[in-house]
C-alpha cells in the first residue's frame, strides 16, 4: 500500500492549489490578448495539460504510487487520444466533399 509518509502535507497541497489558480489566471489573461483562434487553442490546451498533469501527480497521488501504475494507465490514455487525433481531421475532408447547400 502507499506509504502516507511519502505524500505531501497540507502546506504543499495549498501551494499546488495556488499554482493551479495562477495557471487559470494566465489562461484568462491569454484570452484578452488578440491571439488567433489556433494559437489561443494551442496555448490553452498546453496550460490545461500542465494543470491536469499536476493534479494527476499530486492531488491524485499518482507520483506516490508504484511506477508501474503510472506506466499501465497514462501511456494507454495518451495513445488513445493520439489515435483519435488522426481520425478527427477526416471531418474536414467530409466538409469539403459534401454537396454545397443551395
Amino acid at each position, binding site marked *: *500500500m*502507499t506509504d*502516507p509518509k511519502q505524500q505531501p*502535507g*497540507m502546506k504543499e*497541497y*495549498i501551494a499546488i*492549489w495556488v499554482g*493551479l*489558480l495562477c495557471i*487559470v489566471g494566465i*489562461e*484568462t489573461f*491569454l*484570452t*484578452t490578448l*488578440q491571439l488567433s*483562434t*489556433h494559437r*489561443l*487553442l494551442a496555448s*490553452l*490546451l498546453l*496550460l*490545461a495539460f500542465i*494543470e*491536469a498533469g499536476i*493534479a*494527476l501527480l499530486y*492531488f*491524485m497521488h499518482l507520483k506516490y*504510487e*508504484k511506477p*508501474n*501504475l503510472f506506466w*499501465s*494507465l497514462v501511456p*494507454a*490514455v495518451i495513445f*488513445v*487520444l493520439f489515435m*483519435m*487525433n488522426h481520425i*478527427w*481531421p477526416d*471531418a*474536414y475532408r467530409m*466538409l469539403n466533399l459534401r454537396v454545397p447547400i443551395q
Partner: protein
Amino acid sequence: MSESEITLGAGHAAAMEPSPYAIQSKKLTMWLFIISDAVTFGAVLFGYSYLRAGTPNWPTPFHFSPSIVNGLVMTFVLLTSSLTMLAAVAAAKQGRKSSCLLWMSATIVLGIIFATLHLREWFHLFADGWSLSKNPLGGPVQFGATFFSITGLHLMHVISGIIALIVIAIGYKTDWLDAGHVETTGLYWHFVDLVWMFVFPLLYLMNTAR
C-alpha cells in the same frame, strides 16, 4: 496450529499474492474507470476543438462579466473542493473521523455551489435564446449542441460525485465503510476537477467575445 492448517495457510498465501500495483482493488477499479472516462471526455473535447477551430464564424457569446467571472468563481470553487477533499482523505488515513466528515461536508457544499452556479449559467443562456439547436446570434448552431452536451456531461459527473460523497460520508460515519473508500471517492472527485481544467478554457475562454 496443525500441519494441515499451516499447509492451508500457505496455500492461501500463494493464491492471494499481493497486487502488482500495491493498491487496494477498489482503488485500481476507480483508476480503470477514470481512464475510460478520460477517453470519453477526450473524444468529445477533441471533436469540439476541431469543430471550434475549423468554423470561421463560430459564435462567441461570453463576455468577461458576467460569464467568465462566473466561470472563474466556479473554477475557484471546484479547485478548493479538491483541497478540502485532500484534507478529508488525510484525516481519514489518520483515523480522525470527525475531521474527515467535516472536510467531506465542506467538499459536498462546494460541489453544490458549483452545480448551482453552473445551472444559473445555463438558465441565463436559455433566457438569451440558446439551446441545443438554436443560435440567437445567427451562424452555426453547433455552439449550443457542444456547450450544453459537454458541460452537461461534466455537471452529471459533479452531481454523481456529490451523491457518492454523501453516501460515503454516511457509510464512514457509521463504520460501514473505511478510509480506503474515502480515498477512492477522493480520486473520482479530483478527476472531476481535472476534467474542468479542460472544459473551462476550451468552452468558456475560447468562446469569449474579443
